[in-house]
């Protein structure tokens, strides 16, 4: 009887150990896969195209984007992406890199919003190239969005509410998949945005070249696709819901040192 109890106890102790080692194996294989991806990042080409677009006179005003203010002053790009989204007095809005770039293309170059955001979700769009270039100028800078203006604080709050807001035919919120450590959908590892380090590991690598899509995905592209996977309707590009989510995620990832453009599955 006692021996039987011992065997049962040993089994009970063994089962979690087995599944933990299986999870460990999967994690180390995924690590290898990520290392393999690091060898060359096609996003570098997108970054070069973005620089060309930044310095090329375009639009009705035949002007470049070099005087665009992304939050640190006209034309000051170094570290700007790591401090977005933020409040801009001229638009009286909290804006992310993409909505701010669209604003600059409109005001400086005279492009319509439709022209500025043309094909934004398709590979090789102007926005994809410009965001890649702008984000790359924050390499080595820590994520630190300002929380000074009332609208900046409100945006983080709204983003947090949306993060936990359950809806749709599958009852999902962002938190369903992104609020626990060590979780995966199938073999895809999921960042836990409740944890500073895990949030950092995600946010420092966006925008990122996605091997499966043969394109660089911006943060808006990433978030709008998450919402699509949750079976929501398409969120509007450059909308406040998408900017609010970014504000919240950036705040969760504060202090993370930027490495974008990243490369992912």
């Amino acid at each position, binding site marked *: 009887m006692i021996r039987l109890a011992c065997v049962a106890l040993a089994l009970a102790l063994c089962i979690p150990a087995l599944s933990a080692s299986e999870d460990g194996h999967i994690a180390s294989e995924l690590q290898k896969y990520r290392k393999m991806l690091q060898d060359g990042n096609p996003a570098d080409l997108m970054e070069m195209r973005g620089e060309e677009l930044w310095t090329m006179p375009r639009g009705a005003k035949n002007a470049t984007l070099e005087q665009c203010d992304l939050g640190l002053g006209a034309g000051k790009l170094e570290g700007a992406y790591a401090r977005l989204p933020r409040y801009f007095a001229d638009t009286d809005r909290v804006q992310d890199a993409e909505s701010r770039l669209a604003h600059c293309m409109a005001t400086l170059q005279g492009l319509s919003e439709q022209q500025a955001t043309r094909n934004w979700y398709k590979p090789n769009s102007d926005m994809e190239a410009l965001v890649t270039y702008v984000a790359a100028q924050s390499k080595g800078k820590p994520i630190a969005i300002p929380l000074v203006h009332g609208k900046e604080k409100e945006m983080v709050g709204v983003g947090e509410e949306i993060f936990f807001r359950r809806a749709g*035919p599958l009852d999902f919120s962002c938190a369903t998949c992104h609020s626990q450590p060590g979780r995966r959908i199938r073999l895809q590892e999921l960042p836990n945005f409740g944890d500073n380090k895990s949030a950092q590991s995600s946010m420092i690598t966006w925008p990122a070249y996605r091997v499966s899509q043969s394109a660089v995905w911006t943060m808006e592209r990433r978030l709008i696709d998450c919402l*699509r996977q949750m079976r929501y*309707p398409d969120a509007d590009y450059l909308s406040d819901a998408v900017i609010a989510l970014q504000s919240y995620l950036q705040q969760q990832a504060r202090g993370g040192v930027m490495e974008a453009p990243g490369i992912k599955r």
Partner: protein
Amino acid sequence: MRPKLRHIAAMIFAGLCTAASAGDALHARTEAVVRQSFSGASTEEWNERLRQDEAQALCSRYRNHAPPDVAKRILETQQESFRYPEDGKLMGSWKEGEKLASVGTGGHIGNIQPDRPGTRKGGNCYACHALAKKEIAAGNLGPSLTGFGKLRGLSPESIKYTYEKIYNAQAFYPCSMMPRFGHNGWLTPKEIADAVAFLLDPESPVNQ
């Protein structure tokens, strides 16, 4: 109450009220932002996919940790939701259930990357659960269900529990992360019966 104490109590009360109204204001602002940010959604899409039902709203508000009275209300309302297959069989074909468990498509809308019309809506069980041992690419958002049938047995109670759990997990566990597959009309009662067979049938690879 002494004047000083009364003053402190009034201050605490005022503080609580401010906190509550600040939360309400943020909530109202959030709902307005959501509404404005899906401007392309039709009224039907809004109602079916973005507007929250009571359980969704409560679970969001309490971040999935509902206090006891709220949890009780969710349990009671969700337990009223069950519908069963017309033929009364709660256990269908495990082979059909196995297909359902692997299919992750269906129900994507919008202009960016909608599903082709008629795309099958899967249960996508493997996204979150380990099931058959041979399938390595299983997620871990939910518990492993490998050997579920061996553990639970084939009693009528076990079959009914499994069916109802897939139909509406929140009838057992308020604010469960698991989609309410039957309640939300994502899977039909017959499809849920197939999923039950995949989990419980001794022939199913889940129990091999």
